[in-house]
């Protein structure tokens, strides 16, 4: 091959690079390792992480069982090693599954249209805020303090330089839901979006209807965000919202130390052209057969450049496919039953612990302090091979002493009873 391109050596191929830019030494990276060594290396790293613990952590990342079908499907090279389906004629597999994904997201959220995926739940929030600003031509963003703290940080970083003003409004210290009065007091004609998360960071199911009323009264859009997708198997979908965004990690996406996950954006048909990211549409081929293709590309960066609705290009397609397989396997009845199991487990646990908030909750809730620092309680739990809840002081000084705990279908009764046992014992020590 070298001969046919008239090169003497491989080095000739970059001989034209200016001398000063050429890298003369060898990269300081150990020589290539065998597959066997690589597997052993990562097994060792894995063994330095937690394994064999039962965990009560949720807070945006949930431990749900992954049906084996999910990996069976996403491991097929035809899905795993293909790229964005630009060439519809040889990408109908991916295109069809995305179309089904968009449909299922609409069915789950009560929205009319959805896109092919966002990076994750946290980045879907600023995208929703920007979308609301485009729709309303306003610049104010009101976000509940009961929205996931890291989502709020992401929102702040992302919209800061596009002229949006982000203001936080309070949660109700009693119910744990949004403080409607505070929200109302902050609403005015400059507000583009009111952002509420349900179930919120404390696990509380929010009163979306009320929030919608207030937002719409002052001409703002309501953006509803979620982190625990399984709740949608049971909760009334946020039909009154104008935009729904959130995180699908709960749908057979392993926690994987925080990613890759998959975010979604869904909205009303009338805002379709304001959605960021890829969208798949139905059409026909030259023979009149039903076919699918990427559509409404004029919203996107490769056509619109600086005027695009977003700069997103690569999304989370394969992860969205995992969620699609999950939704298919569980289906209508399964997802509901799964949600009921989560609800039941969390309520079993809650009955034996002091709850900080009174509002209705799904599968996580805040445990009030018992006099002992939560970090201390967690230390004791670790000795029982249990990873406790998330101490809240880090994000909510006013809730220091409390911890956020979660129970899913994978949390078994023994573990919950053990947790309660330790909690009570520690409480005694505190007295």
């Amino acid at each position, binding site marked *: 091959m070298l001969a046919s391109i008239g090169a003497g050596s491989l080095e000739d191929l970059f001989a*034209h690079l200016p001398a000063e830019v050429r890298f003369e030494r060898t990269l300081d990276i150990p020589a290539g390792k065998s597959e066997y060594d690589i597997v052993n290396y990562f*097994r060792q790293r894995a063994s330095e992480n937690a394994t064999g613990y039962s965990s009560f952590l949720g807070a945006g990342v949930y431990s749900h069982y992954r049906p084996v079908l999910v990996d069976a499907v996403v491991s097929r090279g035809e899905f795993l090693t293909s790229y964005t389906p630009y060439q519809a004629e040889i990408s109908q597999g*991916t295109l069809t599954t995305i*179309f089904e994904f968009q449909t299922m997201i609409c069915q789950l959220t009560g929205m009319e249209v959805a896109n092919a995926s966002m990076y994750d739940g946290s980045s879907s929030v600023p995208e929703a805020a920007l979308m609301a600003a485009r729709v309303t031509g306003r610049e104010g963003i009101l976000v509940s303090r009961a929205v996931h703290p890291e989502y709020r940080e992401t929102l702040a970083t992302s919209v800061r330089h596009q002229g949006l003003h982000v203001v936080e409004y309070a949660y109700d210290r009693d119910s744990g839901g949004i403080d409607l009065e505070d929200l109302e007091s902050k609403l005015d004609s400059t507000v583009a979006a009111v952002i509420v998360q349900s179930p919120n960071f404390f696990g509380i199911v929010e009163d979306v209807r009320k929030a919608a009323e207030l937002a719409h009264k002052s001409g703002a859009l309501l953006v509803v965000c979620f982190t625990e997708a399984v709740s949608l198997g049971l909760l009334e979908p946020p039909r009154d919202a104008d935009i729904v965004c959130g995180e699908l990690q709960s749908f057979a996406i392993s926690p994987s130390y925080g990613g890759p996950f998959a975010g979604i954006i869904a909205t009303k048909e009338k805002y379709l052209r304001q959605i960021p990211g890829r969208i798949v549409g139905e059409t026909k081929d030259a023979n009149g057969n039903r076919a699918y293709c990427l*559509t409404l590309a004029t919203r996107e960066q490769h056509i619109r450049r600086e005027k*695009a609705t977003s700069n997103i290009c690569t999304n989370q397609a394969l992860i969205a496919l995992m969620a699609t*397989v999950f939704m298919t396997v569980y289906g209508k009845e399964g997802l*509901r039953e799964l949600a009921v199991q989560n609800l039941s487990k969390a309520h*079993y646990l809650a009955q034996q612990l002091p709850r900080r908030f009174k509002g209705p909750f799904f599968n996580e809730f805040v445990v009030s302090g018992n006099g002992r620092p939560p970090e201390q309680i967690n230390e004791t739990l670790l000795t029982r091979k249990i990873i406790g809840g998330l101490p809240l002081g880090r994000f909510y000084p006013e809730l220091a002493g409390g911890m956020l705990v979660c129970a899913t279908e994978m949390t078994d009764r023994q573990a919950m009873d053990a947790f309660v046992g330790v909690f009570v014992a520690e409480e005694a020590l505190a007295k």
Partner: protein
Amino acid sequence: MIRKVRPHITQNEPLLFESSSPGKIGYQLPDLDVPAVDPAAALGESNTRREIEGFPEVSEVEAIRHFSRLSTYNYAIDLGLYPLGSCTMKYNPRVNEAVARIEGLAWAHPYQPESLSQGAMEVMAVLENALAEITGMDAVTLQPAAGAHGEFTGILLIRALLESRGNPRKNILIPDSAHGTNPATAHMAGYQVRNLPSNDRGMVDMEALVRLCDEDTAALMITNPNTVGVFEENITRIAAILHGKGAQVYMDGANMNALVGIARPGDFGVDVMHLNLHKTFSTPHGGGGPGSGAVAVKGHLEPFLPVPRLLRREGQWTWNYDRPDSIGRVRAFYGNFGVLVRALAYIMAHGGPGLKNATMDALLNANYIRTLLEPYYDHPHKAPTMHECVFSDEMQAKRGVRTGDIAKRLIDYGFHPYTVSFPLIVHGALMIEPTETEGKRELDLFVDAMISIAKEVEEDPELVLKAPHSTRTNRVDEVTAARKPVVRWKPAADEA
């Protein structure tokens, strides 16, 4: 003559919603070991839904057949050459999939105690160091989820630096050959885009640069090698000019597959850049994602990197949130960890020398294609080819055949097409990136196919204009799709 493919039957498959039948289930849950709670009682009537209308109801075997059948409609790297220019569609090693699924890694919760996360943090630290060495930069953040996300992060870093110097400035210079994400990113970061023309060799027009670069210039976003596959030979001068005006140089590293082991952006004046780990470092594209857009910076930008940062303290890794100058986080948690694991596995498998060899093979393959196709397709920019080559459809356009048509015909020959109509500076572009993955056999089949299509354009343009002819779905009507968007399934009733 088509030598690479033959038609074979593939199974038709309705949408899940069409094949659902009430009551069918594909799952079984464990028995509940606690009392079942009544949803309405616990959450309130008004908060509970009756059902998920229209949601799928299929058996397990129907589910696996559904996705198995659909998968057979796809083309993939596992099936052959995937020469999408700028996308670096290289082989995705299967061992990377295996290691990313090891329980202790796949099931690590981002909030689990640091003492029980040392393995994950070590993986990220080792990868940060490797990427710093490869790029010649001083620090790396692994937080961004993809290239565009990395661009956004990088420009925010520049903005923060300039603000700390008293003035964020107004403009970002972007060559007209740049990828769409560059201007879109500049806009999202609150900057004006100033268009920088290219010269006839596809490189930055130096006069124009000198003219446009002023005290209002925050940065230049440059892709190197650029999107015509050409190395910006004046890159050090370019950087000097920017720096002379107190501006920064951002490099879009999407084409880093051309440089790994042979040149380092950190050595030619780049201040900040992103890497697409799903391109250069072989993590699977998965039909469109996930990716990872790691960002590498020079020391002066390090203070502004997103929180949290890895910190070594008393022989343990810890997450450091105490970073007063940080731009904040660009996403929740720490990054697409599962993708990072795969990228590190790729780097370990190659090692320093192996990475350089891969780069040289990528250059060899691109030059091979350029050389063999130049007689048949117009190659507008005469500069040396790096990892990809960009032709124009000028010769074929005379017969009314455009790059998009040639692409469709290529499908009949058993290949995924090249990137169509990008970059914009090449009229009717055919952007071809073979990567180092391909052997001579596959490349020769591709070259033969392209030459044969060039002949068809002369002899029988209709054949090309109506392609593809051999796929289960032939040419798709994208215009109608956009004009009357149907983006979700609805029951027949509603449609009527």
